[in-house]
C-alpha cells in the first residue's frame, strides 16, 4: 500500500525550479502566511500547531506548539532560530527542504515567528552547506522584495528581520543552546539548563529553536487546517515525516511518508529492498545516535515515535541507515565512536573524556590488542557518561555503543586475541604506543 505523500513537505523535491519565488507563489506559496497574519492571532497559530500534534523533527520529538507556549506572554524581545545545522549521520532531509523548496521553510519560519512574537529570525545553516547558504539567501532576498519580510508584512503590522547565518563545522551546534551560543559569537557549546531557551536564550531573551522540517510543516497546517494534517500519522505521532535513507538499498533518498507505517512496507515498497547480493542485517532508524535494531526487530516495528520508543530505540531525526550482512559491526562502531570523539564540544568531563576513551578502546580492539575485560569496560565507560552531562551528545555516543555491544557481541568477542594480564590494568605492560 503506497502511502507516499507528496504535497506537504516534498511537493517540489527533485524539481529544478521549485526554489523560485514565482513558482512557489503560483503553487499556493505564502497563502498560509497571509491567512495567519490577517485572520489569526499569534495565540491561534500556536494553538493550531499544538492541536495538529506537530513534534520537533530534529531529533527530540518535543511538541512544537507546546514549546512555543513556554515563551512568556509579556516578553519584550523574542528570537527565533531555524536549525539547519543538519549533521546527524544518516540525515539529509533538511538539505532537501532548503535545496528544493527554501520558501516553504521561510514561510513556515515567518508564521512561527508571528506565533511567538519574534522580530528577528536566524536560519542557521551548517557551514558545509555553503552552496545552500547562498541559495537560501537568494530566497530570503526574494521574500524581502515581495514584502514577506521586513516591516509591516502584508500590512499586518508584524515586522520580521531574517538573517541567514552560516555555521563553520561543528555537530554540537545542532543542539539548541549550542546553536544559540554559536550565533552569540562563542564556541557552540551547549548551556546548562535551567534556564531553558524559551525563558532565557539568545542574549538572555526568550528564544525558540526549531528544526527545518518542523518549521516547513507549519504552512500546510495553517493553510489546510489541523484535520487535514492529522489525517496522516497516528494519534500521538501526527502528520508526515521525511525519512533520509542511506546504505545499500535499491533506492536511497528522502521520502515523505505518514508516521506509523510499518518498516517492512517502507523497506520493500519504497526502498526496493537491498541491492543485489546484500541482505539486511541491521537498521539504525533515527540518525546514528539511537540504538540499532536487528533486521528482525526492524521488520516488526512501525515507524512512529511511540512504536520505536517501545522497541527500545528512537525515531530521532529519521536518518535511516541500512546495514547489510557484509558490514563489520565493530568497524562501524569505530566509525561512529570516532564521530562523537571528533564532535564532543569538550565542556563537561564525562562526555569529553568518555568519547575519547570509547573510541580508543574500540580502535585497540580492532587492532587485536583488546582483552575480554575491554567489553565490560566499554559498558562501564558508557555508564559513566549517561545522564551525567550537560547535553545529550553523551547519550548519542552511548546508545549506538551499548546497543551494538548488546546485539552483536560475538563480533566484538571474535576480536579478542590476548589473554588478560594479571593484576590491575594500570600496571599492564605498555604495548604499542598509539599516536
Amino acid at each position: 500500500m503506497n502511502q507516499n505523500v507528496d504535497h506537504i513537505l516534498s511537493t517540489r523535491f527533485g524539481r529544478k525550479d521549485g526554489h523560485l519565488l514565482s513558482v512557489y507563489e503560483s503553487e499556493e506559496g505564502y497563502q498560509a502566511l497571509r491567512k495567519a497574519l490577517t485572520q489569526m492571532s499569534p495565540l491561534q497559530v500556536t494553538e493550531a500547531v499544538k492541536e495538529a500534534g506537530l513534534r520537533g523533527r530534529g531529533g527530540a520529538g518535543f511538541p512544537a506548539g507546546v514549546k512555543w507556549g513556554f515563551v512568556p506572554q509579556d516578553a519584550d524581545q523574542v528570537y527565533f532560530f531555524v536549525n539547519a545545522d543538519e549533521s546527524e549521520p544518516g540525515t539529509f532531509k533538511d538539505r532537501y527542504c532548503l535545496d528544493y523548496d527554501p520558501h516553504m521553510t521561510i514561510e513556515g519560519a515567518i508564521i512561527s515567528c508571528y506565533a511567538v512574537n519574534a522580530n528577528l529570525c536566524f536560519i542557521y545553516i551548517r557551514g558545509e552547506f555553503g552552496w545552500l547558504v547562498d541559495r537560501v539567501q537568494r530566497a530570503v532576498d526574494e521574500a524581502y522584495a515581495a514584502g514577506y519580510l521586513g516591516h509591516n508584512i502584508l500590512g499586518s503590522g508584524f515586522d520580521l528581520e531574517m538573517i541567514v547565518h552560516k555555521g563553520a563545522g561543528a555537530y554540537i551546534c545542532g543542539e539548541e543552546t549550542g546553536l544559540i551560543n554559536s550565533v552569540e559569537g562563542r564556541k557552540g557549546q551547549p548551556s546548562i539548563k535551567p534556564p531553558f531557551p524559551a525563558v532565557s536564550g539568545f542574549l538572555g531573551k526568550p528564544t525558540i529553536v526549531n528544526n527545518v522540517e518542523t518549521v516547513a510543516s507549519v504552512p500546510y497546517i495553517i493553510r489546510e487546517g489541523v484535520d487535514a494534517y492529522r489525517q496522516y500519522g497516528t494519534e500521538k505521532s501526527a502528520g508526515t515525516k521525511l525519512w533520509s535513507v542511506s546504505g545499500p538499498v535499491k533506492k536511497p533518498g528522502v521520502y515523505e511518508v505518514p508516521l506509523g507505517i510499518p518498516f517492512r512496507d517502507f523497506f520493500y515498497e519504497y526502498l526496493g529492498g537491498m541491492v543485489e547480493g546484500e541482505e539486511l542485517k541491521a537498521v539504525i532508524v533515527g540518525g546514528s545516535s539511537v540504538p540499532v535494531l536487528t533486521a528482525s526487530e526492524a521488520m516488526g516495528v512501525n515507524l512512529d515515535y511511540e512504536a520505536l520508543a517501545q522497541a527500545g530505540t528512537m525515531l530521532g531525526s529519521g536518518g535511516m541507515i541500512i546495514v547489510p550482512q557484509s558490514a563489520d559491526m565493530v568497524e562501524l562502531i569505530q566509525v561512529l565512536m570516532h564521530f562523537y570523539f571528533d564532535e564532543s564540544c569538550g565542556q563537561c568531563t564525562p562526555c569529553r573524556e568518555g568519547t575519547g576513551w570509547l573510541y580508543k578502546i574500540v580502535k585497540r580492539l580492532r587492532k587485536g590488542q583488546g582483552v575480554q575485560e575491554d567489553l565490560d569496560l566499554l559498558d562501564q565507560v558508557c555508564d559513566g557518561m549517561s545522564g551525567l552531562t550537560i547535553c545529550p551528545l553523551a547519550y548519542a555516543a552511548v546508545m549506538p555503543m551499548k546497543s551494538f555491544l548488546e546485539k552483536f557481541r560475538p563480533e566484538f568477542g571474535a576480536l579478542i586475541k590476548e589473554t588478560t594480564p594479571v593484576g590491575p590494568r594500570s600496571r599492564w605492560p605498555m604495548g604499542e604506543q598509539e599516536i
Partner: protein
Amino acid sequence: MNKPTEVQAEFSFSGQLQAQFQHIVERYPTRESALMPSLWLIQEEYGYVPPLAVDWLVENLGVSHARVWELLSFYTMFRSEPQAKYVLQVCHNISCHLMGARSIIAHLEKRLGIRLGEKTPDGKFALEGAECLGACGHGPVMQLGKHFYEYLTTEKVDQILESLKKDIVPRADTDRELEE
C-alpha cells in the same frame, strides 16, 4: 593548535569588503555576534584567517584574542593557516563508509601520493577526512569548497582530479542552473 607561519604587513578591508563588514555589524544584534560572519568574510577573501586579521577583529569587534582563537580552533572549517589550492574533504562517516568511502579514500591517496591529512608538496592538493556532510543517500561524497561531488566511484574521482590538475573546477552535483 598551530602557530600561523605567514608574516604580513598589515590587514585591512578593501572598499567592498568593508561595506560587507559594515552590513554584518549593522544587522547582527551585538558586535560579538558579528564575529562568526566576519571570520567567514575574511576567510572567503583570503582563503584563511591571517593573524593580523585576528588583531583587526579584536579591535573592531571588541572581542578578546582568546575568543577569536577559540572559534578558530573549535570550528573545523575556520583555518588559521594558508590552505592548499584544492582541499578535498571526503566523508568517512557511517553511510558513506557503507557505500565504499574507504576505497575512495585509498584511491585518492594513491592518485595524489599523500595520506589522509596531508598536502601535496606543490601545495596544490590537500586530502582530509570529514564527518557526515549531509549527503548520506548520495554517498560516497567529497567536498571541495562549496561543491559536493557525490555518488563517487574511482572513475569519477579520476575525472575530477584530471580536471582540477588543469585548474578547472568540475561542475558539482550540488550546482544548480539558476533561472532568474
